[in-house]
């Protein structure tokens, strides 16, 4: 655990990671901003924000008021920035607003659908607003609504739809003109866990299957790690962090192991931990215990899998102790852990312990939703 978290805490390590990612991306930037600032009389919404976002699914994370919506408005060419420059798909937002909006789709955070028309009628209308000829608008609407998972119900008035279905219509109107980039503002807001997973799956497919780049905002880090290739965190209008999710979620894998207790080993988990530690396996979390408050909490060991041999070590250790193996599964590191680790380090009192506790807590709250 220490080896892992220390490389994350070291500022120099972070800087190189960001720099590397930026260099790779700037070649084919979908969104690029340079010292972008937006100042209102009393508030600074964006403060010299410099970003390079490449193709793929990018998560834009920030708390309310962090400047996410302001950034989207500027990117759509709808409000001029106080200073700095921004380009979307290589087009300057200050001069080519209309050209950008023709190639970009936007899904607002709030409800935006009239209840008395059907999804088909509404999306056809929006397609025509994007410049699609009538026939093309109808064909693309039928296609797009199917892609987002609306079938027979698309002929019914939107007023009778569930929140999940409304979100799909909102997504469909953003995709109907086959944009090169979609900006999704909090698309999972108000959805239940199943709806949330489906929406995240859809967002992933927008890039993998449709070839459309995605900028998705959220205030939940946990859901972005499964969906995004890249995560940008802004706070108070400044860039907190920009990095590729693969950078820190795929370098090492976490294994969750749960075992039964036996007469010989009344505390099976403890016995296994001892054996594994002796075998030189690195434990993650507080002594390797996953204290999530879920069923089985305190009985799940989180260990770092460095390769195939770790799986063998676990299997042999469990067999050697004569315990039953309830589960052994791979988990990706959650982005939340990484950010919380950094914050923990910044707070500095007891970095490792604080960070770990924070990470575990965050994971717990993140996973409660599922």
């Amino acid at each position, binding site marked *: 655990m220490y080896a892992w978290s220390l490389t994350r805490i070291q500022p120099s390590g972070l800087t190189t990671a960001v720099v590397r990612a930026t260099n790779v991306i700037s070649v084919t930037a979908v969104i690029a901003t340079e010292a972008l600032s937006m100042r209102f009389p009393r508030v600074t919404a964006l403060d010299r924000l410099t970003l390079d976002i490449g193709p793929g699914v990018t998560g834009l994370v920030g708390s309310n008021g962090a400047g996410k919506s302001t950034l989207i408005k500027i990117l759509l060419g709808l409000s001029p920035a106080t200073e700095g420059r921004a380009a979307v798909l290589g087009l300057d937002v200050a001069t080519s607003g209309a050209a950008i909006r023709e190639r970009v789709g936007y899904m607002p955070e709030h409800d935006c659908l009239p209840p008395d028309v059907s999804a088909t009628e509404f999306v056809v209308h929006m397609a025509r607003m994007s410049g699609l000829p009538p026939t*093309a608008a109808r064909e693309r609407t039928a296609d797009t609504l199917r892609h987002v998972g609306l079938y027979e119900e698309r002929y019914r008035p939107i007023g009778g739809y569930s929140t999940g279905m409304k979100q799909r219509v909102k997504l469909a109107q953003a995709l109907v003109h086959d944009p090169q980039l979609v900006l999704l503002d909090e698309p999972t807001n108000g959805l239940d866990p199943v709806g949330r997973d*489906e929406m995240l*799956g859809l967002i992933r497919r927008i890039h993998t299957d449709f070839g459309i780049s995605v900028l998705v905002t959220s205030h939940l880090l946990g859901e972005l790690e499964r969906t995004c290739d890249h995560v940008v965190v802004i706070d108070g209008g400044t860039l907190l962090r920009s990095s590729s999710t693969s950078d820190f979620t795929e370098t090492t894998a976490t294994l969750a192991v749960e075992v039964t207790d036996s007469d010989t080993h009344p505390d099976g988990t403890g016995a296994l931990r001892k054996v594994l530690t002796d075998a030189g396996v690195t434990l993650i979390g507080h002594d390797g215990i996953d204290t999530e408050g879920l069923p089985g909490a305190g009985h799940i060991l989180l260990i770092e899998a460095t390769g195939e041999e770790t799986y063998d070590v676990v299997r042999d250790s469990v067999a050697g102790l004569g315990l039953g193996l309830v589960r052994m599964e791979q988990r990706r590191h959650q982005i939340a852990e990484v950010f919380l680790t950094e914050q923990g380090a910044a707070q500095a009192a007891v970095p490792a312990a604080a960070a770990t506790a924070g990470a575990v807590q965050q994971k717990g709250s993140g996973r409660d939703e599922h």
Partner: protein
Amino acid sequence: MSTETKAAAGRDASRIHNIGYRSYDGPRLGRAYARRSLFSQTLRGSFGLGRSAKSKVLPMLLFGVMALVAAILVAVSIAAPDATKLVVKYTSYAIYLQAVIGLFIAAQAPQAVSRDLRFKSVPLYFSRPIEHADYVVAKFAATASALFILTGAPLLILYVGSLLAKFDFADQTKWFGQGLVSVALLSVLFAGLGLVMAALTPRRGFGVAAVIALLTITYGAVSTVQAIAWETGSEGAVQWLGLFSPITLIDGVQTAFLGATSAFPGGEGPGAGVGVVYLLVVLALVAGSYAVLLRRYRRVGL
């Protein structure tokens, strides 16, 4: 609860939808086309076309009343022995049926603009190539066109009826033309005022009430004060008072320039000189409405 099961569920869900994505390489027709589309959608919507059956009732009913009254007047005119012209002037028709026109604009102006505000669809428009001015122009033009159809169609019925009755062709055509100009002016003026009132509130009910109030209160006040002025012998004031309500403005303009008979007390509308003032006020109101709408939507934005 593991990542694997979640990922697997995601794959299953997507496999159901996966029918292959087709990208779009066809033409993108841009702002002018989008503006036209918004215009036709709003115009159709004004008569409830492309909307629920419920929203067709009122506009179709009002349109029916306008047409039916015209048809009855035609029948009466034809049935009358040795009639040489219609029993009603083309220019008077809209004035007589102003209540119906008022109801129509009160119901349909909020439909045209409050809906987008209330359901917050406006950002969806402005995240597309059209600009604020395109939106306002399309909505304004569509509402004015809807009113023109509502007020022009009965005039057409009167005209066709008069031709069937073999009234004098030249006279009828001239009067019909004057009538069309008059209702065109009325349509633009009412559309502008109605949209401004409706756009000020996202609540449809308030919009309806505001439009009705604007039309009826001003008309009631103006005609009352005009009547008092007439009774007290200050005839000169009557023609100036007409400037303060939409329908009397139209009445004044058409009396001055379009050969109409004024509905003012005493039947004396403004002459050409005062008529110019009327026309200027009408044009200023139209331009002002456009400016207010533009300002309003600039503020709404995203």
